[in-house]
């Protein structure tokens, strides 16, 4: 187990180095000027060149990469070229809405997905089953930005039930923060709910077929008890891995959803930074996202091992 952990963490580090290098080269190889972005459209070519020089953007790509890696080795993510503030602080400032969004969306996904999948499996081969598969298919296929815009129109404009866009920090007004997050969480959560529904349906069907369920049934236990005490619990084990993965997935979805709902999260910071080529910020974001994905994967694997003793990692 310890060796497994060690190998996974080493692998994670290699992965992240690969990610960092790929992104760095990608963004730096192609011409573009941050000076131009900072100084605005009326700046002269000469002014732009001067600022680029001052920011060190005219140095060779490899030199800059080396400097950045050296900095990173000291645990320093550097400073935003655009704002001059430490990247780590900017990231920390943007984490709250994204984390809450991911948690809420996961809640929606699990809250909708698991019951939907369970009902489908229990009512296997009935219209309920087909309907649940249909619903989850719709959930998977609907583009989330389109869903988001339509939800805003429906709830914000026609029903006037929920605020349309924006955010309030939890420390300021937790209730309001929640209200701002409901529509984005539904938008982001529904597609994952569909995945989880399909997964838990399949798992439950598998479990219901197993010997111990048959045994339980043949012992004359109530169907309800068989389902809840034996089947559903066991069926949830593989579902956990899908939930873990969907959390990582949501970081991607957050880019689009945060943009639609004007949430000041990490996803929107990513778009802004890419559009303005704020290199240190993009690097920091990419590393953070990669780290989150890696840690979630690791946690899922570990949880999986704990829940299912049949699996042992060499």
């Amino acid at each position: 187990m310890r060796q497994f952990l060690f190998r996974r963490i080493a692998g994670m580090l290699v992965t992240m180095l690969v990610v960092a290098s790929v992104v760095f080269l990608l963004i730096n190889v192609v011409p573009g000027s941050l000076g131009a972005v900072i100084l605005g459209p009326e700046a002269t070519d000469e002014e732009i060149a001067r600022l680029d020089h001052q920011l060190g953007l005219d140095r060779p790509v490899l030199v800059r990469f080396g400097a950045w890696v050296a900095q990173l080795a000291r645990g320093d993510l550097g400073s935003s070229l655009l704002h001059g503030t430490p990247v780590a602080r900017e990231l920390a400032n943007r984490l709250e809405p994204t984390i809450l969004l991911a948690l809420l969306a996961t809640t929606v996904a699990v809250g909708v997905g698991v019951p939907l999948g369970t009902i489908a499996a229990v009512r296997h081969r009935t219209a309920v089953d087909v309907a649940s598969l249909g619903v989850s298919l719709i959930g998977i296929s609907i583009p989330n930005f389109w869903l988001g815009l339509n939800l805003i129109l429906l709830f914000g404009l026609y029903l006037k039930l929920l605020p349309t866009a924006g955010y309030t920090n939890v420390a300021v007004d937790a209730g309001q923060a929640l209200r701002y997050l409901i529509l984005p969480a539904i938008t982001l959560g529904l597609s994952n709910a569909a995945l989880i529904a399909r997964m838990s349906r399949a798992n439950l069907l598998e479990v219901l077929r197993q010997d111990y369920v048959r045994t339980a049934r043949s012992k004359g236990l109530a169907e309800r008890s068989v389902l809840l005490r034996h089947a559903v619990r066991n069926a949830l084990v593989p579902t956990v891995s899908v939930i873990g993965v969907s959390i990582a997935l949501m970081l991607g979805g957050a880019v689009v959803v945060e943009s639609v709902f004007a949430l000041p999260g990490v996803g929107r910071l990513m778009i802004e930074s890419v559009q303005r080529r704020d290199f240190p910020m993009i690097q920091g974001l990419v590393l953070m996202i990669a780290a989150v994905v890696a840690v979630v994967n690791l946690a899922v694997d570990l949880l999986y091992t704990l829940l299912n003793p049949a699996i042992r990692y060499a």
Partner: protein
Amino acid sequence: MLRSIGTSRLRRVLPVLIVALMLGSASAVNGAPAAPATGTPVRGGSAKIAMKTEPDTLDIMWSTSDIIYWIAVHIFEGLMSYDAEWKPVPHLASAHNVSGDGLTHTFTLRRGVRFHNGKEMTSEDVVASLKRWSAISPIGRDINERTNDIVARDRYTVDWRLKAPVSILPYALALWSQAPMIYPSEVVAAAAPRRQITEFIGTGPYRFAEWRRGQQVRMTRYNEYQPLSSAPNGRAGRRDAHLDEVIFVFVPEPSVRQVGLEAGDFHFVMEADRESYPRYRFNLKYKSYLGKAGTTWLVPNHGSPLFNRPRLRTAFQTSVCADAILAIYANPRFYRKDPSVMGPGKWNTDVGREFYNQCNTDRARQQLREGGYDGRPMRMLLASTDQPKIDIATVLQQQLGRVNMPMEHLLRDASGYARVRADRQAWDMLITESSFREHPVLVSHLPANGIPGWQNPDKEKLVDDLMAATNPQQETQIWRRIEQLWHQDVAAVKVGDFFAYNVARVEFEGLGDRPFPYFWNSWLRKR
């Protein structure tokens, strides 16, 4: 002296001076210009303003970007302000005097004006701020070249000593765009020479409270604010902070901004979709306002392999149908057809009438043949986030299709755009939406090393004459000749003048008569 350093630099550099001057004042779109007050001011409340784009900084000296000053003018103030006639009048100064030889401008400061950190504003702060502005702003640098020194004569008096008269100095000091506003000297000292300030401390009616990046900028009433006693007059005069808070919320999706307005989440939407005007026009819950004003130009690159041939530029000019393009601005209330390079007022001429909006396909084809056009595509440089210009390009593409000139989009993000623009061989045309200019020499397409790269010895000579001209009649005549050359050489093809569209909820009052939205002297009526 002035002519030797002055003219070319002035023409090259001076970007946006004194905007919207000739427009008169913009006004409420529906109906007559609203009376400034539709009710009695109410104290209190928190106004939420929805903006599309988040600025990179609130350092108002930093760049000409209008999204900076839309927010920052509430925090900072300058020595001078424009009144309703666009004349600069003292604001943080109590008096402005010019010596007989025009070489010394003396600004007497108001006493007892306190920064938001409690410190009293003195000549030390003014000198530090003006020197910083003279170093980083293009207009400032230009004036700086004709400056001996800016000195604090005493605690409340500042002398701006010039080498040669600069009559535009008080105008420049009243600017909002890349504005010479007054920061505490220690804030100026803390900023690296070519970097932005990080502490936003001014003297204005609102003080900076917090900036949640990606979300909002919040400012609160400055209770120790010392308003002028004179009545509000344009941007000048008394400023009252009726609102407790002004919050600028950044919402990238256009329709979401408006849904937010209708749902009551926002009180004011900057740059609403002009197409939605009919939606609000007759709705008593909202009030429409004209926003930022400017001119749309199609700018051929005089250095490119395609448009370095004058005949082909002319052919292009002949083919353009301004009517069809202007329809993009939705409604004649938001645009104006006008051939003149300059807006309404003293510099407006009809010289361009025969060149403007010709829309003559046959003649354009013939001119293309005469110019030896080889069918190569015209490369249109566009920023990928700039939807209005992309739409203009799309309409133009169709027009050019009629004269068999294909168009190729060079679509770049903001940083890539600047990089391509700097390479004069890499593109053939771009589109600009420039703000109105007060004086022809400030028009950015005029100078030989400006964006189209319009070179013509006759023009250079005339521009020098214009700078030296003293009597208005002479000035007008010279300008008419320059404008004639402008159209003949196709420095840039004018599409028309335009306005942005802002919408407010009706309970947001006192917004009446202002071309750029600002939120002092306005209040939220209690519902």
